């Protein structure tokens, strides 16, 4: 009988333990590094005029990105108004009517695939459809691109959340004589409320940091967004333009805008995740 020493095996085990702990630590460290840099560099440029003034030419101090904050809010709001109801209803179809239909399977599959399509492609699509024919960039086109990105996310999370609602609830609502649409919107939706809000928040968080689709659609503008039917200032394209510029004070503003976007996106994500944990309990 050969007795093998346990030492090399234990060493290998220890080695792997150390490596995987270090890998996890690296992930956290990178997150901390990014958060630290954005907070440190961004907080320097956050002041009153940052939130209230229009951008100034490089060299003139005191400019702000108020128009971009407003523009981003308007574009995101419009995208939410278009993308979320459509996504919710598509999710209702997947969960309530299309569980075993061909259309249901096709839409489910397409939604999953669509979630993996680069956002820049969606921007390109919105450009060819909504910018080229009208010969000018517009906030509407930007909102449409973001809504297209939101749609599959909302549809899939809605389906998942509605599936968590016990069937007995549906049946009892229907047994009491309420029509299907009332049972779905009044009873099933209410039961899945937290989950649905989570899905919507995650979708908003996902698109509010998007830049690529806005480069071809909303573009940017140094003026107040009067109408969304013209190039519309927004934070992420401002970050892109300002960060790539050679002017230090513009780069500073880009950091401030990054901090703003990061706070918004992370806050939305954290709230959504906590809500989701409640649902899964």
């Amino acid at each position, binding site marked *: 009988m050969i007795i093998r020493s346990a030492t090399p095996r*234990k060493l*290998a*085990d220890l080695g*792997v*333990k150390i*490596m*995987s*702990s270090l*890998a*996890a630590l690296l*992930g956290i460290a*990178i*997150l901390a*590094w*990014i958060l630290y*840099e954005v907070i440190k560099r961004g907080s320097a440029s956050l002041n009153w005029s940052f939130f209230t003034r229009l951008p100034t030419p490089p060299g003139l101090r005191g400019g702000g990105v108020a128009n971009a904050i407003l523009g981003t809010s308007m574009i995101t709001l419009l995208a939410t108004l278009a993308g979320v*109801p*459509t996504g919710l209803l*598509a999710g209702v*179809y997947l969960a*309530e*009517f*299309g569980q075993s239909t061909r*259309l249901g399977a*096709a*839409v489910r599959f*397409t939604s*999953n695939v*669509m979630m*993996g*399509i*680069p*956002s*820049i*492609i*969606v921007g*390109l699509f919105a*450009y*060819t459809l909504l910018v080229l024919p009208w010969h000018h960039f517009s906030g509407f086109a930007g909102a449409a691109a973001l809504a297209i990105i939101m749609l599959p996310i909302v*549809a899939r999370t809605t389906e998942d959340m509605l599936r968590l609602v016990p069937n007995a609830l549906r049946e009892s609502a229907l047994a009491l004589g309420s*029509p*299907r*649409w009332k049972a779905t919107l009044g009873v099933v939706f209410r039961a899945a409320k937290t989950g649905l809000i989570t899905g919507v928040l995650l979708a908003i968080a996902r698109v*509010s*940091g*998007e*830049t690529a689709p806005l480069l*071809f659609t909303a*573009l940017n503008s140094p003026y107040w967004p009067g109408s969304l039917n013209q190039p519309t200032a927004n934070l992420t394209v401002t970050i*892109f333009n300002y960060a*790539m510029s050679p002017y230090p004070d513009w*780069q500073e503003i880009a950091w401030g805008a*990054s901090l703003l*976007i*990061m706070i918004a*996106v*992370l806050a939305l*994500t*954290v709230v959504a*995740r906590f809500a989701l944990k409640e649902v899964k309990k």
Partner: protein
Amino acid sequence: MSGIYFMVQQVNKAMKPISHQNIQKKADGLFRYLTALCALVVLALMVGIFWALLSNSQLAIRRFGFRFLVSQAWNPVTQEFGAASSIYGTLVSTAIALILAVPLSLAIAIFLVELAPPALGRVAGYGIELLAAIPSIIFGMWGLFVFAPFMADHVQPALNKTLGFLPFFQGPPMGIGMLTAGIILALMILPFISAVARDVFRMVPPVLKESAYGLGSTNWEVTHKVTISYGLRGLLGATFLGLGRAIGETMAVTFVIGNDHTISKSLFAAGNSIASTLANEFAEASEPLYLSALVKLGLVLFVITILIQIVAQLWLKRIGKSLGGGGL
């Protein structure tokens, strides 16, 4: 049975005159159609994207044909466009990202599932998840102003000193370039791969692991002989998802890749990717042919990602079925 059915029919007939019931039925039908319509929008958009890209790149397709894919020329002045350097950059930066991210995410998943005490695992898992939530433009800002100088000062000189005999690690350490882009891509896809890997590991039946422990295996032996081999196909699916993400990532890459239409052996050199070319040059594309060439570039990226996504989805669906879990 048929008696009951007959009775129900009779009752239904009797109820018909009550218009209230009729309206409700109509409303239900309408509701069903409305939801189906919204579901159809998803399909229509997918087809629409393909059609729009195809029809708007006709000019470039007719002018360059397949030569577009292999030509290195990119000259707006002479109206000569080729995608070779963009495709090369996309593939190389994605390859670097996968080479770095797959082992790292695997190690992170092992840590989260097998090693960490539950409380620590939760916090660490949360941190990794947050990394996925950071917008790509912020990765770009951080990459350009913080990480690229770090690469130039520390990483690239060290690589050049130790592995400089390889052509990949030669050239001036500028910070930005293919390698930096690949590393930042790796950091961005890490959370996605490790999340799927974590789910796959959690699906391994505990009894398999327990019996291996019972035979006296160490933690690592259980992990690589039981957990990893059981979840291997799931991990492949996770890799595909990471690949799909990395290949189309735009903003972070645009900031750090250097945006140069040349193919260089050195990973320190500036290059470009399909997505970064689109982001950078779209505003300048005033001539129809230039624009059409860019849309054709988008079409190439779209076809590549669609194929990757379809393979990944089919693969994950099959695995989810065979493992009997809905976690994927």
